């Protein structure tokens, strides 16, 4: 009976261990992190522009995971018109993303278009050289970004030129960048 009780004890111990062990390692999780950059241009001139300076730390998805992000790369980018007045407005739309010393990382242009046509978004075609430059800069700054953002990591610009279709005009729009990050589950 003593031997039996030992076996039962051993089995019970093994059972409790079995619930929480025998594990398999989880690798990094590939999390898509969106960076939304909003712009507004208004006026009556034939061209208008807006600039936004920002840091990665301003985005909650990045902030929540930044200590666990081991790698980040460009995935996708797209432009959306949120609101445009007058609707018939046309022009050449440009977006540019620069680093903290104004080197161009990513740029995109939509020539002779109506912003109203992009209420549902338009994905940018970004060249491999720009993607490489962006990725290199991103991975250089992501670990050393200034938490107070006194020296913003990125400078983004939106402009519309050769405007026709009515004045005064007002455009609310945004560019969304998706970063593919590798997040450690630790």
């Amino acid at each position, binding site marked *: 009976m003593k031997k039996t009780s030992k076996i039962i004890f051993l*089995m019970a111990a*093994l059972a409790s261990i079995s*619930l929480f*062990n025998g594990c*398999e390692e989880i690798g990094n999780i590939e999390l*898509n992190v969106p960076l*939304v950059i909003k712009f507004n241009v208004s006026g009556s001139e034939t061209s208008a522009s807006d600039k936004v300076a920002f840091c990665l730390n301003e985005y909650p998805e990045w902030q929540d995971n930044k200590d666990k992000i081991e790698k980040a790369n460009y995935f996708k980018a797209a432009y959306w018109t949120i609101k445009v007045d007058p609707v018939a407005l046309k022009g050449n739309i440009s977006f540019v993303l620069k680093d903290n010393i104004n080197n161009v990382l990513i740029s995109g242009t939509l020539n002779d278009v109506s912003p109203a046509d992009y209420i549902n978004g338009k994905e940018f075609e970004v060249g491999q050289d720009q993607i490489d430059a962006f990725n290199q800069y991103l991975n250089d700054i992501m670990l050393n970004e200034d938490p107070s953002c006194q020296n913003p990591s990125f400078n983004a610009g939106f402009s519309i030129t050769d405007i026709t279709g009515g004045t005064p005009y007002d455009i609310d729009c*945004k560019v969304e960048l*998706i970063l593919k990050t590798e997040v450690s589950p630790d």
Partner: protein
Amino acid sequence: MKKLCMILVFIFFAGYSSAQIGESFQLPSSEVEKYATPLATWSGTYFNSGGYYTASVPKTFGFKLSLIGMMIFIPEDQQTFDIYPYDGYDGDEKSATFFGDEGAAVLGSEGFIIYPPGINMSSVPAGIPQIAFSFMGAEALIRYFPKLDIGDVEVNLIGWGLKYNFSQLIPGLPLDIAAQILFNNFEAVHPDTELNTANMAFNIHASKAFDSFIVYGGLQYESTNMDYTYTYEDLDNDVTERVDISVEGENNMRLTLGVAVKVAVLAFNVDYNIGSQNALVAGINFEF
């Protein structure tokens, strides 16, 4: 490197999905269901495994303490799903299920619609202890642990089963044949997420003993329902919504084939289960 352990799959899902699906990914519930269905199937494959290694049941009193370990294999077609983020979507992109790898990001009317990534695992280990009491050719099986706090997730399990060796009613049968029914309920509660799986299985199994060596097999019908509740924070409108989703596992039928060896009061068994997700199950059983 963090390890993912057995029932902790659920805990990981509860905490992880609360942080990721509820806040970052504003997906329609139909897409969350597709993301979570393989997890429900895994739950069923897990809890509905290891119910037997012999159809023989002592005619007098018997006791059995079993430790069941298993490896569940997630097929490739359950690691991704075809996305349909909104009515009229005509793309052909796929995104990861809970067990997959990369989440998709597709153009939506208000921004990118971002899908959650998976944990990138094609085989997941699991284990469960159980005890059984038998009397007069019938066996009652119990799986239980009380509410446990693991991090900020509270979990508990209760499972039971009944089995009857009806071949004892038919004299002269060359093998033992038994019927068994199993019910297992598992609950994981996170401050922002609740996950409950209800698993049912009914099987007919048979075994033939050759001295201390047993060959066994069975056919099992089973079902799994996973209720999943999470809170969704709409940051634009500053409201928090509660979302309830019910997911059916794709585990319905399984074929089990296995062998066991008895050594004194111990029996060692191994079986292979062919179903929606295949599983290799091994057990150590102390019995008298």
